[in-house]
């Protein structure tokens, strides 16, 4: 087994799995509902990610690209930026 090392990933991929989170998960800064799924990158790696919603019309294999979303900071603090994939 090779030693893991950081690699740069493609910001584009295809949709491999998706659902909608309907109840706000523990510790989440954002509120439900939001999209959630897996995007497959060109080198075969699959990434767990938030998805830009609504996801009702999403289809298996559709192209997706990386984006960012600001979530409200805890206790009126600064917003926290995290990633999400967009169609």
């Amino acid at each position: 087994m090779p030693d893991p090392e950081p690699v740069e990933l493609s910001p584009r991929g295809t949709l491999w799995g998706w659902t909608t989170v309907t109840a706000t998960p523990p510790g989440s800064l954002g509120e439900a509902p939001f999209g959630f799924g897996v995007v497959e990158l060109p080198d075969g790696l699959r990434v767990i990610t938030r998805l830009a919603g609504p996801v009702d019309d999403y289809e298996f294999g559709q192209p997706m690209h990386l984006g960012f979303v600001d979530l409200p900071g805890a206790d009126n603090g600064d917003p926290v930026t995290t990633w999400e994939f967009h169609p």
Partner: protein
Amino acid sequence: MTAANTGVEITGIGIHPFGRWGEKTATEMGVDAVRAALADAGVGPGTRSFQAAFCGTAYSGVAAGHKVLGALALTGVPIVDVEAGCASGGAALMLAAAAIRAGQYDSVLVFGIEKMPKGIIRSSFFEPWREEAGLAATPAYFALRAQRLMRESGVTKEHLARIVVKNRRNGVHNPDAMFRKEVTVDDVLGSRVVCEPLHLFMLCSPNEGAAAVVLQRGDGGVQLRAAALRSHLPGSVLGEATPMSGVDDHDLAPPSTLAARAAYEEAGIGPTDLDVVECQDTDAARELLAYEELELCPRGTAGAWAESGHTGPTGPLPVNPSGGLLSKGEPLGASGLGQVVELVRQLRGSAGPRQVEGARIALAHTVGRGANASVTLLST
């Protein structure tokens, strides 16, 4: 080390029903289960027949096992708490059986206790930044696995609903279960969507309870033939390890398969030898996935297997005759030992209206956070 060189017998079982018990503490539930198991083993009150104790628990805090045995005045021996997520009970069994087989002890007490809040389980497994980003959405991971099973194994939402109907029907006859009312396919599909394709009734409820077994060196009664625990291989994206990324895992054996193969080999028992199974039905799709991962049916055929009624109470291989976690609920540290309690009853022929006729060889399976998977094999 491969084959066992000495038998391990289960001489006593005890359970505190799974449910929600208000002010009753995990310690108090543990006391009830341990007392019942020792009585079942023929041990008189205040007598300590065991030389060590392992306590499976994930959420009970420091020295949880000591608190239970302290309340029973049974301390003085080694007492070790074991945490392996949903497989904590299976992990405790593995350690206890290995210690007996190694000649370290003649008898070991194994118990599990848990008192969980309702709703999505909060877990320190998720780093704070993952929680903040909303990625600690446990049912969403279950949903993605269910979606994949529907895409690759011919599973439909109706199949998922019918697993719930099967297990809830079995649970009607189990006084230790939390839900004892039958549901219909319409009820299941009419319950609210938690994470498409999973509806509320397709998900088990985290709850409270305790279970205990007494292990003894010996070749009679119900034998513990194998107790295997495995973790995940690096790389799989949708296993219970819930990593942030991974690869196509078709070539990677999941932890449940690793544990099953180890247990089958240790016991010299194969999937076709089994008479009854209790498996991890965290959600309805998880049970169908377990059929494939435990190699009860070939990969990609879980849908057809579900359709055939193979695993119903009168089918060739009944699965979750206790009602499963879908009926009992899931007190993490106690759930795996609860399965073992059910299977010992089945092998003793004392399961009442749930009895699987002529059951001689049984398998218990748990899988969860870590990832950890345990497979336990029992026989008469």
